[in-house]
């Protein structure tokens, strides 16, 4: 069993899905001979041909709209948006069509599509290449929003997303594309959607997070262990619909919660998690909830981006504050 990076795991899942289902089509900018600017689709066009691995014109709205039409016709389109900063023109299609085609036709038509996009900062990319606005998408009824944080989950969750009968937005943290490595068995086994993953068990504080920032979150958990604080780390993984049970069970156990996300704080999905706890687990809370997030500003260009991101220090400090609260 070979060690693969997260982007290689994505590639494995795409190849597997295309192999097992002739209706799976990959489309996007530079996904063909170039194999994608991050190499996520490398080799697919050579293997499955240009009809199934399609370089589209430069038009993101088109990519999402094509997916809706293809899906309604029984294909399983997997569209790629080159960077999340360019996904915004797709929102009209996601809100008004992809997420409601099934409902508006009362099941006569459906929209089994996947829209993939790399997300997040930390790779010293140019302007508009470091977006992390999953909260906007997780507010759309009828949609699924998934963010893997390891090669195994990238592989298993992408397979699940492609096999799912409804539209899924699949966000891939660029910072982990090559830095995250793990042994992944290409066995075609999907992981469950709508389920959060407990990456580390603990009893003193629950830390809920998703995406690349889990790296810092896990590092913070190590640091905390040094101080005798046992942190439970949860990878939410699927933001819409999300796994309330796992979060509530953990907070019931620890009585403390820190939410960590890379996106800007205000209106970020961390608010949703905090609300869940404040509504359904308040009695078990021994301390205020803490959010450690990107700041409420435009993500800076590379020279300052690391100052924007939640750091191991900020996460650990918040957890300590929460644990020292009395």
């Amino acid at each position: 069993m070979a060690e693969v990076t997260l982007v290689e795991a994505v590639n494995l899942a795409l190849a597997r899905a295309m192999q097992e289902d002739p209706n799976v089509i990959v489309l996007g900018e530079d996904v063909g001979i170039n194999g994608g600017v991050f190499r996520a689709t490398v080799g697919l066009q050579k293997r499955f041909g240009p009809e199934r691995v399609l370089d589209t014109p430069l038009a993101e709205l088109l990519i999402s709209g094509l997916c809706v039409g293809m899906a309604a016709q029984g294909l399983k389109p997997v569209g790629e948006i080159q960077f999340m900063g360019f996904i915004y023109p797709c929102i009209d299609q996601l809100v008004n069509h992809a997420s409601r085609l099934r409902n508006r036709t009362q099941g006569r038509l459906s929209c089994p599509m996947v829209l993939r996009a790399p997300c997040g900062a930390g790779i010293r990319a140019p302007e508009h290449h470091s977006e992390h606005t999953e909260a906007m998408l997780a507010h759309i009824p009828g949609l699924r929003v998934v963010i893997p944080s390891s090669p195994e989950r990238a592989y298993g969750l992408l397979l699940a997303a492609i096999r799912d009968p409804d539209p899924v937005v699949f966000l891939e943290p660029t910072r982990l594309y090559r830095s995250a490595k793990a042994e992944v068995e290409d066995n075609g086994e999907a992981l469950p959607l709508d389920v959060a993953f407990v990456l580390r068990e603990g009893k003193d504080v629950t830390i809920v997070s998703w995406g690349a920032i889990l790296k810092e979150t896990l590092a913070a958990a190590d640091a905390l262990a040094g101080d005798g604080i046992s942190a439970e780390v949860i990878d939410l993984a699927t933001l819409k619909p999300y796994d309330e049970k796992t979060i509530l069970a953990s907070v019931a156990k620890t009585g403390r919660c820190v939410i960590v996300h890379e996106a800007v704080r205000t209106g970020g999905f961390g608010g949703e998690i905090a609300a869940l706890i404040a509504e359904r687990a308040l009695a078990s809370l021994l301390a205020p909830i803490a959010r450690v997030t990107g700041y409420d500003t435009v993500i800076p260009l590379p020279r300052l981006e690391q100052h924007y991101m939640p750091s191991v220090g900020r996460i650990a400090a918040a957890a300590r504050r929460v644990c020292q609260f009395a």
Partner: protein
Amino acid sequence: MVETRMSDATLSVIAHFDVRRRRVLAADGTLVGPRPDVAVNALTSLYRAMVLTRTFDLKAVSLQRTGRLGTYAVSLGQEAVSAGVASAMQQEDVLLPSYRDNGMLLWRGVKMEEILLYWGGDERGNRTSGPAHDFPFCVPVGSQAPHAAGVAYALKFRKEPRVAVCLLGDGATSKGDVYEAMNFAGVHKLPLVFVVNNNQWAISVPLKLQTACATLAQKAIAAGFEGEQVDGNDVIAVRAAAEEAIAAARGGKGPRLIEALTYRLGDHTTADDAARYRPPEEVQAHWKEEPIARLRAYLVSQQAWSKAEEEQLAAECQSQVEAAVERYLATPAREPASMFDHLYARLPDVYAAQRDEIGGASHG
């Protein structure tokens, strides 16, 4: 201008485009050119369809006026486009309509009570008796164009001899999604026919504020395929243009755009009052062009239609529409909790509580 530049040796013409207009029947119903070989009884069935559409539209408006229907968009004056294009399609072709193409849906087999149910505020109206693969009415203007391209790609991908037909308004041609879809259709020579129903108005916005183009047919030039203009009040011309374009698309010759010149004789919708922005004289003048009287005049001149048939048709349409209205009005509202039934293929457990809350609420 052209002359001076032509005289400049460093400027040579490298591309050249023509846009043509097709017309068979003059406003008075006389032929202006050879009639394409459409059988007369084909023409009478087109005539019947147009009359039924108008009868239905007018009834829908009166339902809205009396509070028994929501906002409704009549196709008054545009019946020839619906009949001409729909009759040129096969059932297995895929229709992607706008919100004003009632006549097309009727021809495709959608029940009148289903159309009424939709505009009456019930999603079940979109689960139609028409071809299961057809798209429902599209309200966000032009946003169905990329779907049409995706559908056409799927048809071509599976090598099926089927065509997608996408209906758009003049206003829709200003939308970037429509352009992106057309451009993609051009690249892949998709089996896709765009029909632009140019009724001169986008609510209160006249064509000249919509674009500086002399024709909307020329929008296709930017997508690398052919556009043609047709007299949209001339159902024979529309039918011929649609037949030709659909056959070409089916034959692998790629997409085509048909601009049908019509006029919106009614208000934009029942929520609109066109008197605010256009003079009644303008509307009056266009009544002289309207497609139903025009075809009737022609059929009568061919001894293919009689006063008796006209009266019988009117009566038939009335009773058909009335019966459909009865069925519509008799349809009970669905269970409130059913608003979750088709959100996902299988409702995620986290939403069950909300669904049950509604269920409870609605029973109390």
